[in-house]
């Protein structure tokens, strides 16, 4: 949303607040008092699919993120089983990486984790010729490796360099995150954990509590409250991709 639009909405309810308020009233009339749709949706049963009532997002506080710490990267490697490939440096798999920034005028240095930004308008999905690159109803951008032909258009389209190609055979370990040679892969926001109601591995591993995971559509969630109160930024917001990953302090 542009600044201009945001100013226009100041004072009144935003569209999202308006819609969720309407939903709360509608559901409140049906269910018992105090039971609202978003609390039901969070404890999803395995038979219930992902829905667009939710939009999963990640908020990263770069003020807390330590330079030189890569706990989130190690946790991701362990959870999803990447990083042990015997390949050239140029072909290294990278679901998440640490990026260090320095502002030359002031000398201020910040460190931040960079991964798939789970855009609302993902360019990787636009360019995919087979439909393998797709966005789930709850905003998580994934690769269906059954359909991926390994053309790597999505890797070229992604402005965040978030995706990797598997060049060599993989030793498969985890049954919940299968990986295969000849397909593209990237951060899944630990979708297998999210579906069970858990946090992504990187969020769990951060000792500084610099990462907050949650539902951006749920006004009661910590992430939604923080993005509504504090200044946060989407990286390359100028591209108007509306990423679900936001950063504080940059």
């Amino acid at each position, binding site marked *: 949303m542009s600044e201009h639009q945001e100013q226009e909405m100041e004072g009144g309810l935003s569209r999202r607040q308006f819609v969720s308020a309407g939903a709360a009233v509608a559901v409140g009339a049906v269910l018992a008092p105090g039971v609202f749709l978003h609390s039901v949706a969070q404890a999803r049963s395995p*038979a219930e699919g992902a829905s667009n009532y939710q939009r999963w997002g990640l908020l990263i506080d770069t003020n807390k993120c330590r330079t030189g710490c890569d706990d989130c990267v190690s946790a991701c490697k362990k959870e999803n089983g990447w990083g042990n490939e015997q390949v050239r440096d140029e072909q290294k798999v990278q679901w998440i990486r640490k990026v260090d920034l320095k502002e030359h005028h002031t000398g201020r240095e910040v460190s931040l984790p960079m991964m798939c930004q789970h855009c609302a308008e993902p360019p990787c999905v636009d360019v995919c010729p087979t439909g393998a690159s797709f966005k789930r109803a709850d905003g998580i951008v994934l690769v269906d490796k059954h359909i991926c032909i390994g053309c790597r258009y999505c890797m070229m389209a992604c402005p965040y360099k978030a995706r990797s190609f598997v060049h060599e055979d993989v030793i498969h370990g985890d049954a919940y995150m299968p990986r295969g040679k000849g*397909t593209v892969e990237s951060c899944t926001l630990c979708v297998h954990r999210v579906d069970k109601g*858990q946090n992504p591995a990187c969020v769990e591993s951060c000792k500084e509590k610099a990462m907050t995971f*949650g539902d951006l559509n749920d006004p009661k969630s910590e*992430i939604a409250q923080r993005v509504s109160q504090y200044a946060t930024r989407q990286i390359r917001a100028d591209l108007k991709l509306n990423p679900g990953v936001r950063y504080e302090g940059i």
Partner: protein
Amino acid sequence: MTAQHALRAFLTLVLAGWVTASAVAEVAHPVIPKGKGERCVADTSVMRRNHMQLLKHQRDETMHNGIRTERFSLVGCMNCHAYVNSQPVSIKDERHFCNVCHQYAAVKIDCFECHASTPQPVSAAVAPEAHP
């Protein structure tokens, strides 16, 4: 039916019978290892004919819609079937449940180029906790 058609049908039958007989004679019938559980998620006749459709349907439901029911999940299959004499085996083993029939029928499967072919711990991940 003309005489020519009748002759062709007869020859086809004879040939098919001969091929089947020779195949049976040469290749041993697969020895299917018994699953760990009491019974399969569906009747054997249904599973034998339709397991590929069931798995593919489940695959798309899980991948695209996040539906993670256990009944037809591949992990569920492996947790019950990937045993020989109560010992877990991988697809590299000729006696693996999937291997015995697929080798007999000469149908190559590529599921296990990515997916694990061995039984998996119920959940290696930490205990569930609520989202913030």
